[in-house]
């Protein structure tokens, strides 16, 4: 009996053994599965971070290149901003000189004012600021702004007849367009103004 029992238990053990192995294997399986999942998550996160890192590195690199590229333009823009604020002064002096009464033209005081105007223009030129040609030129909206039109026989349609405010440019940059009157053919009913 005892023997049999032992045998039985041995058989039991033998029968159970594979089960235990299976259990162990199952536990290992779970571990591996969990670890695999963790790894996948970590890898996904890592990929996400790497992607973000690359993006921000690339963005910064592009930003840096852009800054370099735009540096010249930015400094030009800054000069243009200051010049733009000063231009009304140039306009006023120009008007003063244009309205110079003939009777006083030879007075040395008056000539002093004319010299001041010239000096201001020389100063602007020294910054690379040049007046935009307008009168008699074909109207070009890149550098001219039309305020009025007027029927005119003498000039072809689309010619600048009069300049109300001199325009200026700094290199390629239009600091201020010339404000002008433009000819239209006299048959046209398009004599308009902005008011």
């Amino acid at each position, binding site marked *: 009996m005892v023997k049999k029992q032992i045998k039985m238990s041995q058989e039991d053990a033998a029968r159970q053994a594979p089960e235990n192995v299976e259990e162990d294997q199952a536990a290992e399986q779970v571990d591996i599965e969990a670890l695999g999942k963790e790894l996948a998550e970590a890898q996904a996160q890592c990929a996400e971070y790497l992607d*973000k890192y690359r993006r*921000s590195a690339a*963005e*910064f690199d*592009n*930003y840096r*290149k*852009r800054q370099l*590229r735009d540096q010249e*333009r930015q400094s030009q*823009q800054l000069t*243009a901003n200051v010049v733009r604020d000063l231009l009304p002064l140039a306009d*006023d002096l120009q*008007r*003063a000189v*244009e*309205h110079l*009464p003939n009777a006083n033209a030879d007075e040395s005081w008056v000539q002093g004012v004319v010299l001041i105007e010239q000096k201001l223009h020389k100063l602007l030129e020294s910054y690379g600021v040049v007046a935009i040609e307008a009168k008699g030129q074909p*109207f070009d*909206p*890149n550098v*001219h*702004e*039309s*305020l*009025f*039109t007027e029927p005119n026989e003498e000039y072809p349609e*689309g010619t600048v007849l009069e300049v*109300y405010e001199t325009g200026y440019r700094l290199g390629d*940059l*239009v600091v201020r*367009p010339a*404000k002008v009157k*433009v000819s*239209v053919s006299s048959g046209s009913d*398009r004599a*308009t*103004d*902005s*008011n």
Partner: protein
Amino acid sequence: MSKIIGIDLGTTNSVISVMEGGEPAVISTAEGERLCPSVVAVNPKTSERMEGRVARRQAITNPDNTIFSVKRLMGRKFSDPEVQKATKVLPYKIIEADNGDAWVVMGGKEFSPPEISAMILGKLKRDAEAYLGETVTDAVITVPAYFNDSQRQATKDAGRIAGLNVRRIINEPTASALAYGLDKKKDERIAVYDLGGGTFDISILDLGDGVFEVKSTNGDTFLGGDDFDQRVIDWIVDEFRKDQGIDLRNDRMALQRLKDAGEKAKIELSTTQQTEINLPFITADANGPKHLNLTLTRSKLEQLVDDLVERTLGPCRKALEDAGLKKEDINEVILVGGQTRMPMVQRRVEEFFGKTPHKGINPDEVVSVGAAIQAGVLAGDVDDVLLLDVTPLTLGIETLGGVATPLIERNSTIPTRKSQVFSTAADNQTQVQINVVQGERPMATDNKQLGTFVLDGIPSAPRGIPQIEVTFDIDADGILHVSAKDKATGREQKITIQASSGLDENEIERMVDDAKRHADDDRRRKDEVEQRNEADTLAYQAEKMLRDLGDKVPTESRSDVEEKVSAVRKALEGQDLAEIKRRKDALSQAMQKVGEAAYQQADPGEAPEGQAQGGGDDEGTVEGEFREV
């Protein structure tokens, strides 16, 4: 994936923005402006097409073929009363298309409003690409809150025609709320008051779970900043007539100048109490040229436009009524549009709603900025994973004389790292103490002491010779690692400082304020230390020079220099800064003479290195007259 841009496609002007390094940035047009006129034109002779500023400039000469305000026609039938109103004020030809929609004629061809808008969008796209240096394919575009489905669809179509994948159409008031970060709040009611150049809109939004819902809108399509300008111009004309008896309304050139001057005066009065309108040679009569010179005060301007501001409050009341809300129900008020820069407008809005309105973002750009933020969310640029932080205060170490030498400046974005090479302050100094300080004051003792450590084992050498590399490294968590390394031996010491535990917001503000308040005082003290350091260095150099030159220095000069060195040393013991400077200058002159004499000798030769001295200079903290190597 390329960037998604945010576009405020306005009736008069449009603005583009993009997220850059986590922050919205407005993109300048090719013409260098931050806004682009929403105008398209065709030259009838050359068939050349123009957009934006250039198209605007030629509008007067080419009124039939210059299309502006096309937004007023978007997605509308020709029979729509709004379109009928527009045909009366717009100079170009508006026609009825086969499907009943309102179309326009430009350069002899018929175009749908989305096609015209697409030309503007196309220009904005090109400008953005030129700025970014990459292709732009996707965009978020804003529309007025009152736009219906067909108007929104028309806007989307415009984007498609321009080659843009319109990722989302969002409401202008919603974009403004996003720009102010209001989506992070919950369950609020927001009033967006938008007073632009030509139109006024008021919108009431309801925010719940980060989603904005438009409860009501109202407004006035013919009320804006241009009306304010006109009031100023009228006033100038009237004043001039009273004064000079001349009506400038008949002088269109003068009127043109008044327009510019009137707008400028209005803008100036948003920041000053009075302004001068000075227009010399404005006109002329038989007696010669006439000048215009007037002073306009802010209170006068406010009288001139009082009823215009009042006119905006009616729609505000209606909008509240339609939303079924009372003024008290509104949690936030946002100001949009250039005219809201006027202090009186801000005051009236505040009085009306009983809330201080949000301002701070450029009101001309806030809609576009909000669109860029929405675009950033869609592109994944905006999320919480990569929130960049900055270090709130300057970090540095204490150097000779108690000066706080900064390594990482305040507001540096972290993580960041910076190294600088320092040296010893005394001969044969074998150890340095690194004293890490935080704050904006120039003297170390006035700043917060974060930690200290000693690097020893530095080989004996004259002062200034050893190279100690100090490295500050703040990681993404705000933790500061400081290390000091002797470049000769490779010996290294380090310390880690949990900066975050140190200062709260109040403390930071106090320290920044302190720094401002004590700026003068501090500068004086720092100057003093610098003077002393210079004098001390000079005395040291003088002794070294005498040793190096040996007997090449005439006895007479030698004793002169020695005398002056001891005078400097003596002065350094005292507190008289002027005395120190005087003695230092005298020594400097004496040294120059010796130096010149030495060079005049044909062969200066190599003097034997004298025994280094003065090693006992142990002040506890002894680290570098710093020099970058």
